[in-house]
């Protein structure tokens, strides 16, 4: 066993960090405040190959390993978690299912542009009444000749209004329950496809989530991803990998909170000495560092499992469960270390605290991760 990154992985970290610090850091607070989608920096990340990192080269990606992918999301999220989720969605929730289940024609038309960073993609599973219970899809796809007619709506869809490609889930046969769900890859300019209202959020404010509404949207049968009825399995398999991305996002947020805390604790003086000389503050720092290290090991382990083709459902669920919890704790205590200043928008830890919360919710809440883990252990 060896706890060292390869040179390649180190290079990815260095590059992602440099990009994040030079290009994203200067705008991070501002785009959060104004809830503005950072189209330019997202485009640059795409052009550098950060949107389809593990996709093979022949399909527009970079053929990179999953640990490198986790490292990249971690580094970008360390500076701005909104960019982190935009990346995670494209890599894990759009490129991966297209690569895994797509036909060559689908890969050519939809995977290549997303993986090469030319366009963004989104993943439409959640509905008003199908959140954790993702199987209760009310969106319906009715087959008519060589096409499907799709009606329904989705909520909370990340990247939606900025995407050209949508991975969409809909019921093709309600009588079969979750086995009646199918997956489609849909062009955003398909007639009948429309964008609803934009969510106003407490965190990751520079990422964008909107409703999607489908009214008699005609999708060619060749846009069915995988087989009819395979949709729920595709969704769950996709989210297994997505969780590694979100866990890496949480890890990056926690790391940032820790670094800011160390910096501040050394420089802030009370009672005539730096607050870092007080044991109470030291304990915040040692707890953060220890937990972040543990989270990092879980995240990289899950990514390693995936890269090596080993089962990773449980390791990914553990990584997300743990890393999101660590992010919550680290950001909460980072504010504590900063005292009143940490509660103001003058210090980045305020943003980190708001950003951390979502990592316990999307791509399966913490409760869901525990259900997945227990389900595996007790089967």
């Amino acid at each position: 066993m060896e706890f060292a990154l390869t040179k390649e992985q180190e290079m990815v970290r260095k590059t992602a960090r440099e990009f994040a610090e030079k290009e994203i850091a200067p705008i991070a607070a501002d785009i959060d405040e104004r809830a503005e989608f950072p189209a330019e920096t997202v485009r640059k990340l795409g052009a550098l190959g950060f949107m389809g990192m593990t996709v093979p080269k022949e399909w527009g990606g970079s053929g990179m390993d999953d640990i490198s992918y986790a490292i990249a999301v971690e580094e970008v999220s360390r500076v701005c978690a909104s960019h982190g989720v935009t990346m995670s969605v494209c890599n894990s929730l759009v490129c991966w299912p297209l690569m895994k289940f797509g036909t060559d024609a689908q890969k050519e038309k939809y995977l290549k542009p997303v993986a090469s960073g030319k366009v963004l993609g989104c993943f439409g599973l959640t509905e008003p009444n199908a959140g954790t219970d993702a199987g209760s899809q009310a969106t319906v796809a009715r087959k008519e000749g060589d096409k499907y007619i799709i009606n329904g709506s989705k909520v909370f869809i990340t990247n939606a209004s900025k995407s050209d490609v949508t991975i969409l889930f809909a019921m093709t046969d309600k009588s079969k329950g979750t086995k009646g769900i199918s997956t489609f890859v849909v062009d955003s300019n398909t007639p009948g496809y429309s964008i609803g209202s934009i969510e106003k959020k407490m965190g990751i404010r520079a990422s964008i989530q909107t409703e999607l509404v489908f009214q008699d949207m005609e999708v060619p049968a060749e846009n069915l991803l995988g087989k009819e009825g395979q949709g729920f399995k595709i969704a769950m398999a996709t989210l297994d990998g997505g969780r590694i991305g979100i866990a890496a996002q949480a890890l990056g947020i926690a790391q940032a909170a820790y670094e800011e805390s160390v910096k501040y604790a050394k420089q802030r003086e009370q009672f005539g000495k730096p607050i870092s000389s007080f044991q109470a503050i030291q304990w915040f720092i040692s707890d953060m560092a220890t937990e972040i290290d543990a989270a990092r090991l879980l995240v990289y382990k899950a990514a390693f499992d995936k890269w090596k083709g080993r089962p990773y459902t449980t390791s990914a669920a553990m990584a997300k469960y743990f890393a999101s919890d660590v992010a919550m704790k680290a950001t909460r205590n980072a504010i504590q270390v900063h005292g009143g200043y940490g509660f103001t928008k003058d210090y980045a830890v305020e943003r980190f605290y708001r950003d951390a919360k979502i990592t316990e919710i999307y791509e399966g809440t913490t409760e869901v991760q525990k259900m997945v883990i227990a389900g595996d252990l007790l089967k």
Partner: protein
Amino acid sequence: MNIIVCVKQVPDTTDVKIDPKTGTLIREGVPSIVNPDDKHALEEALRMKEKFGGKVTVLSMGPPQAEDALRECSAMGADDMVLLCDRAFAGADTWATSYTLGEAAKKIGYDLIICGREAIDGDTAQIGPQMAEHLHLPQITYVKNVETDGNKIVCERALEDGYEKIEASLPALITVIADLNKPRYPSVRGIVEAYREKKVTVWNAKDICADGTCIGMEGSPTSVKRSFAPEPKGKGEVLKGSVKEMSKQLVVKLKDKNVLR
């Protein structure tokens, strides 16, 4: 257009510490990076290649780990990597280094050689000019802007209070400063190719048919007598009193320090 970019791997710090006993740089624990000016050199070379076609070769002389610097350049887009690595090169001063780099450049072939202005550790800014002398090439230093049609180059050469516009025919050698451009980031695909698909060509003294008396310690007309970290400056002193009194005090102090007689 075939371009050679000379790249030095340097410690990632501008205040390198010197071991007072051995007089050499303390490199341990300091991460290595591509010398910052050299990234600007590479960026310019890549832009020229994009315009005129051809090939960009990154060339470095250094220990085996200098390979990392070359791979980073390759991830940014350089086509070929050449590392000059041989115990016989050790102890080279700038004259021997530039001779060695020059011999390698001859073997590679070039229309243009681009160096950084200076390395952040050695700081001499001599390598570029000396290479040009060894190779009998026109040289333009401190370049902050370049234009080329593939046959000649027109450069703006930065001066303290302005710039000179200088034209040279190719082949030529230029040394560049950071104002020239903004280096690109390596791409993810570039990183994969640099580490998994491309090979670093390693040449020793024999490979470049180097004259043994011109390389390494033997080929170095200079030798380091002593290296030392400068003593930290003491606290400044503020003189008080009227202008006349202060001037008097100042003259006394300057005489004390032998600045005035």
